[in-house]
């Protein structure tokens, strides 16, 4: 279980206020247990990504646009991989 404190420890330079804001904006969507967010590795990596984008001065207004495009890109890549897998083994 990765807690807020552990995320802050693993992403130097990130403060709790910003992390909570990103969760409130649903840019990162951890589960909640007992009202507190609990993260998985994918959530942590996404926090790191948003942190990098933030440092690149992708602002609050542009962030959801960038994330949405990235999510679509990954969605398409996942599908492409599935298509390629099926071309190799059409019968599955």
């Amino acid at each position: 279980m990765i807690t807020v404190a552990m995320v802050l420890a693993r992403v130097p330079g990130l403060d709790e206020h910003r992390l909570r804001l990103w969760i409130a904006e649903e840019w990162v969507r951890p589960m909640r247990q007992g009202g507190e967010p609990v993260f998985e590795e994918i959530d942590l990596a996404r926090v790191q990504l948003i942190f990098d984008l933030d440092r690149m001065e992708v602002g609050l207004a542009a962030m959801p646009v960038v994330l949405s495009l990235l999510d679509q890109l990954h969605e398409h890549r996942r599908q492409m991989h599935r298509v390629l897998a099926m071309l190799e083994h059409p019968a599955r």
Partner: protein
Amino acid sequence: MATDPYETLGVSRTATQDEIRTAFRKIAKKNHPDLNPGDSAAEDRFKAANAANEILSDADRRAKFDRGEIDAAGQERQAQRPDRQYYRDFAQGSGGARYGAGAGLDPEDLGDIFGEYFSSREPGGSRPRKGADRRYRLEVPFLSAINGATERLTLPTGETVDVRIPAGIEDGQALRLRGKGDPGRNGGPDGDALIEVGVVPHGSFRRVGRNVELDLPVTLAEAVLGGKVPVPTPRGEVNLMIPAGSEAGARLRLRGRGVAESGGTAAGDMFVTLLLVAGPRDGALETALREWQERHADFDPREAVRRSV
């Protein structure tokens, strides 16, 4: 990759902090691995720029580099965190669907497309289809896994679900919540939520199958004289009878005090292993033990061990 950090960022040796920051940002924006999935050259450029930036953005380190006290490679090893995993590594895996864009084809659709392509028999398209399953992970306390519990969980969708943890669940076992996955299509059923349960180890109790083990400290007096001692179990404290003359390491059984009974499976047992504690020093006890030693000078507790070697 021990190239000159100034070259890597494409700035002059006299560049200001602003120029360095701008140059780094420019490279980072273009080459961030998550913005370029599948392009390892971009990843290399990003890493090199990151390492160069670690040196040049810090006035102290930059001065050291300029004086030749550190080189780009040595510094780079320090600055780079080798364990960094990029978001794309997860997004490309099956777990990536958690942040899916939602508008894509599902695997069954793909199956249909290929089914049509290869056999042109399946009608496909508007067939009812079950929604995809979603995977989550839930950590539960040791005692919840032993006794069973209900954990309230808020899914990323905002939906609150009560997850019933059956007594005796094993670490890594998955629970299925029907209909809590992605919505079905064309009237098909919703997918399920698959919740993988992680059991947090306990400070004192250990689990072996359906039994629970506990190391229990007892005093010399309790071991030699015997008596009742209180023992914590997963379901409250009980009194355990220590037989007089118990050895350290003796295992005593508390029936039915292990994993709680569930679904027709009987409860497991608890095994208590005695640990001998000498306790505070006591002159009278030491005198008595010296006398004991004289009386039992021929008793050798290590005889069996010695013979086996």
